[in-house]
């Protein structure tokens, strides 16, 4: 019996395959468009029938049901198409349906009217505006007078929902720091922010963050690399069919180039920025919808205008107003030669004319040279009346900062925004502010809306989204790695993106940057009986703060060094000398250097060099008899010089070149993830391959990603390196737990949390335990989700 049943199903499957199931998009829609949509879509409902959507079709007309699923012959639609009666046959005007077309409709009805989800036949009733629109601001609620709050509060009041309330200061600082520079606030930054009682402290913190131009560019480079599909490796590079714009892009972000100028330089480029419009050139034949000209048409539409020109570059779009001709005309602006329209990869015989898609704003001269046309296009794109251009950009930034676009998805500015006033207000304001991207970020972040608690979502957001507050974001692959490196004090050795990250006012000094010299320091201890411990100190007088100051030191067996009361270095393994950046620890005038040295047994000795530079000069402060020393509680006396560096039981333990490993102030900041080549870990975590323009990263952690995080070599290496730097510092374990926790989560651990972490880390001397601790901290959702 079962065998029979199975065979029956099988045969059914076979017959439908042989005949072919009806294809709504390619078979049915063309018929409906040709004969029916003129009177029955959009706002037109002749005879009470609209066929914008399947639901509307099924709702029927004033004469009742029009299409009965599964019953073509009984359906009014088919009856009227066949009718011989002049008064009722359909369509009333134009050619009658061909037999082939009727057959398609009958088959479609008989197969249950399959209709691909999301397809609307008529233009939607909402037409996206082109021009900017000034918005009259509603009155402020409860003194919340930031324009964004006035608009959002009015909407929420209407819906009778309350605003989510402000996020705690620490949550704000963590979010703001990750959003502006892609890093975590340090425990010191957090502490001073929390202590600050200034009512404007948030605004000031935002300003401080925005002023960190290198960190800002390092972070926003990720988003713009995705958008402009710029990368250091990738498809097209092996054949010379692709060109980077990294140097130009980084510099533009760093100097906060006005966005209109930024786009003009991309559309009408110099050699440094031409990689974007030139797209990817493949060897061999490509589909006509993928030529460089069409890539140009698609990419500038998507990136700058939130228009999906991908459908229209193959045929007139089914889903929006864009037509094949418009896609090709736009492409023709870029084309070196005459461009023939191809419909679904077949030549049409029709030639494209260089034309821009919003003639309301003016047009390009098709007779002008290519460079001239591009210049004209750049001007039209950034035309002050092109509201589409500004709306698209502010929508992207809103999504970055607030978790979801006002129009969603961010590439579909055709879809109705959930708050038109907000989108339009921001767009106009952005233009009035001189297309200043940092000002836009500052403006959004100074709103109470941005500073609110993020909302808790119990499910994925749908089409019916309504604003309730900021939405938590997942760290990007780059943010995750950058912050892991930041907390654990490591960074990649080399950047793939060749960009200028030097600090301008120190450039001059860079030329004479630090040069390693042979170590002249001596091994020192207090005079007399060695004992287990020794205290060492020296005061150095500085007439000016050095541009850079670096330490290299070690002690047999352990030491802690403080400069002006702040701990700067420690070690518990004499074979692993410590290098550290002392630039920020030193000040003008007297500086007290204190060392607590400890010997576990055998030989005792401490050795250090501090190398300072200023004005191209290099000065070394070395451990020698000029230091003071005493056993704990004893008298301060001149330190005893035990040995020269290279003599004694320790050999040449200090390598002067090691000081180059730390930044030392005047140097280039540590390399960031956005500047290194994509690797397995980042790819797994959602950094795209950048063959295509990408405008959103995956929000959720997948199982395969979790496997990579749990056991992948790359992640394990990052944890190992981080653990080693901690182990070298030789801090007391409780201190280490607190510091890591505060840095990672911007809050102190609760007792229960501290207990868990303490049990993992033990006495804090085992690098493996630190590694495990780091892993379980970095893997916490609280860490990876930016709330």
């Amino acid at each position: 019996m079962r065998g029979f049943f199975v065979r029956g199903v099988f045969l059914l499957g076979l017959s439908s395959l042989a005949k072919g199931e009806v294809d709504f998009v390619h078979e049915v829609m063309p018929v409906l468009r040709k004969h029916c949509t003129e009177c029955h879509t959009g706002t037109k409902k002749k005879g009470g029938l609209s066929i914008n959507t399947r639901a509307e079709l099924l709702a029927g007309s004033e004469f009742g049901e029009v299409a009965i699923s599964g019953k073509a012959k009984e359906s009014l639609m088919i009856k009227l198409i066949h009718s011989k009666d002049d008064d009722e046959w359909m369509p009333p005007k134009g050619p009658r349906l061909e037999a082939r077309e009727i057959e398609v409709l009958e088959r479609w009805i008989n197969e249950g009217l399959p209709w691909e989800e999301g397809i609307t036949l008529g233009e939607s009733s909402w037409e996206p505006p082109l021009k900017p629109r000034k918005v009259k601001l509603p009155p402020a609620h409860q003194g919340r007078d930031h324009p964004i709050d006035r608009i959002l509060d009015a909407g929420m009041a209407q819906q009778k929902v309350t605003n989510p309330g402000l996020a705690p200061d620490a949550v704000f600082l963590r979010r703001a720091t990750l959003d502006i520079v892609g890093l975590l606030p340090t425990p010191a930054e957090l502490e001073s922010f929390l202590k600050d009682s200034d009512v404007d402290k948030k605004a000031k913190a935002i300003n401080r963050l925005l002023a960190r131009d290198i960190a800002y560019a390092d972070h926003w480079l990720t988003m713009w690399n995705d958008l402009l599909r710029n990368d250091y490796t990738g498809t097209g590079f092996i054949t010379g069919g692709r060109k980077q714009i990294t140097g130009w892009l980084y510099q533009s972000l760093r100097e906060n180039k006005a966005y209109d100028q930024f786009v003009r330089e991309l559309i009408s480029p110099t050699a440094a920025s031409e990689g974007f419009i030139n797209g990817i050139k493949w060897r061999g034949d490509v589909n006509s919808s993928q030529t460089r000209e069409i890539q140009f048409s698609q990419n500038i539409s998507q990136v700058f205008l939130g228009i999906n020109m991908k459908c229209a570059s193959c045929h007139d779009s089914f889903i929006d107003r864009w037509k094949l001709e418009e896609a090709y005309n736009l492409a023709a602006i870029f084309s070196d030669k005459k461009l023939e329209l191809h419909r679904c990869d077949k030549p049409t015989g029709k030639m494209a004319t260089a034309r821009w898609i919003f003639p309301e704003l003016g047009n390009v001269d098709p007779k002008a040279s290519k460079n001239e046309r591009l210049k004209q296009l750049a001007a039209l794109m950034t035309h002050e009346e092109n509201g589409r251009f500004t709306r698209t950009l502010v929508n992207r930034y809103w999504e970055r900062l607030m978790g979801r676009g006002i129009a969603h998805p961010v590439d579909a500015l055709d879809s109705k925004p959930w708050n038109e006033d907000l989108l339009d207000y921001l767009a106009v304001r952005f233009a009035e502010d001189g297309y200043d991207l940092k000002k836009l970020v500052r403006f959004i972040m100074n709103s109470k809306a941005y500073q609110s608690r993020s909302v808790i979502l119990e499910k994925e957001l749908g089409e019916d989204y309504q604003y309730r507050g900021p939405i938590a974001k997942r760290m990007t692959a780059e943010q995750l790695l950058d912050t892991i490196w930041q907390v654990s004090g490591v960074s990649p050795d080399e950047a793939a993106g060749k960009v200028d990250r030097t600090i301008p006012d120190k450039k001059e000094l860079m030329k004479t940057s630090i040069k390693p010299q042979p170590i002249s320091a001596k091994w020192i201890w207090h005079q007399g009986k060695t004992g287990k411990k020794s205290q060492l100190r020296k005061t150095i007088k500085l007439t000016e703060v050095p541009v850079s100051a670096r330490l290299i030191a070690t002690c047999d067996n352990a030491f802690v060094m403080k400069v002006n009361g702040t701990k700067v270095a420690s070690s518990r393994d004499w074979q692993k000398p410590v290098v550290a950046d002392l630039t920020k620890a030193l000040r003008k005038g007297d500086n007290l250097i204190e060392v607590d040295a400890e010997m576990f047994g055998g030989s005792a000795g401490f050795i250090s060099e501090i190398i300072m530079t200023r004005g191209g000069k290099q000065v070394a402060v070395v451990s020698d008899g000029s230091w003071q020393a005493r056993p704990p509680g004893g008298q301060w006396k001149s330190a005893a010089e035990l040995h020269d560096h290279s003599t004694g039981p320790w050999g040449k333990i200090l390598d002067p070149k090691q000081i180059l490993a730390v930044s030392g102030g005047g140097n280039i900041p540590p390399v960031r993830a956005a500047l290194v080549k994509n690797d397995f870990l980042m790819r797994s975590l959602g950094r795209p391959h950048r063959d295509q323009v990408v405008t959103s990263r995956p929000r959720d952690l997948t199982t395969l990603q979790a496997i990579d995080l749990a056991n992948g070599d790359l992640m394990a290496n990052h944890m190992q390196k981080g653990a080693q730097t901690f182990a070298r510092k030789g801090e007391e374990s409780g201190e280490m737990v607190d510091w890591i926790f505060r840095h990672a989560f911007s809050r102190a651990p609760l007792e229960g949390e501290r207990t868990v972490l303490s049990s993992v880390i033990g006495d804090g001397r085992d690098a493996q335990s630190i590694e495990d601790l780091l892993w379980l901290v970095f893997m916490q959702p609280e860490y990876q989700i930016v709330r």
Partner: protein
Amino acid sequence: MMTPEEQRTRRDFVKKLSAASLAALGGSGARALADAAEVKHPEAKADSCILIWLAGGMAAPDTFDPKRYFPYEKGLEVDKILSTFPAIDTAVDNIKITKGMEKIAQVMDRGTLIRSAVQPDLGHILHSRHQYHWHTGYVPPLTVAAPHIGAWMGKVLGPKNPVIPPFINIGQRLEGVGEKEELKAFTTGGFFGSEFGPMNLPYPKDAVRSVQPPKGMEPGRFANRYKHFKKLIDQNPNREYMSDFQQESMLRSMESAHRLLQSEEKGAFDLTLEPKESVEKYDTGRFGQGCLLARRLVEEGARFVEVTTEYIPFVHFDTHENGHSTVDRLKKEIDAPIAQLIRDLEERGLLDRTLVVIASEFSRDMMIEGRPGSNAKDQSRARTDKLTEMKQYGLHRHFTGGTSVAMFGGGVKKGGLYGKTADERPLLAVENPVPVEDLHATIFTAMGISPKTAFDVEKRPFFATKDGHGKAVMDVFA
């Protein structure tokens, strides 16, 4: 065997299981155009698929489709040569293949040989581009990232065993080899997102490391670390976030990952658990080990496994010179393990429900680059009219006009032969040409996936076979 009803129920179950992963697609924008009820999937003939990928352009006349043969001889005019290997008999009367494939010849009665697969010429042969086409059904460049066929299977069918990743890719390094960026471009879940991307196992012997704690970490320490991870979650004061779906799905993924890493099934990844005599039957090198690994993974419930001889420009089947001697060596690597894989699957009763496909991105020819009339650049490195040295003896040009694909198990006819290439140059498919989209439709149909299955990307439908037009070659099925 499950009834269709049971299968559907199972599919729903799997769907629920992967609800979190579906949610993951929010970001990448893929949404099923129609739910399972609306797409009429054919009844599945196979539950798992193994793709044996002979990367680099396997010359059909030197492997599965013997033609006029001349042994190497100085002064021989190359345009006379069609094959550089003589034909041998197989277990099927009307099928001959070439010398060096004796073991495969003996299992040809378990499958069907297609000799008329064809590929577009693309105007210039760039292997990775043709491979992209073969693996995704779409010719790059594209406006969206197309998913690999393994990703389609993972997406539409879900994992067969929820613990084993549904898409596993064996033998291809993605770092340190030429055209690596191009290889990565299709070795991906594409717009489905990384949940559906491959688990890459370039070295079969090291596969077990992918499911073990990181190097140097004792299993006890690994388990402990996760235990503490969960303890820390329990101590987290922000209880309200526990109902947040993003946090929930993150924790669920961590849990599934650790479930695999601590599961019994992970033994499937460990070749040292295989009896020695069995290993010997496969172990011709990385490829042979890969076949063995594929068998073990399918036994444990992998959905789609690809095993490759590996693509490296100008190496292995990418014979720009020394074609004959290279293929001679490769046959020694592939013949035993492929035949053994078929026999083992059969012996374990798995062959009926496992589709094994042996394919390559195109064929090769002694004379013609691309196809007749193509303007593709001749890339042979051993051009000559008459043979003067051994390195000129072989099929050194890329040929897209007719190539062989072998299919075993999974409801495929036993001892079947489909399609034909010409007896004289050009060796074009002269009967029943099968383009990539039809070949994919056939594979998908065997797996119970409609070739018209579509997902909505940026409001456009994206189909399992190009524009939903792939037609399954029903003649290859029993």
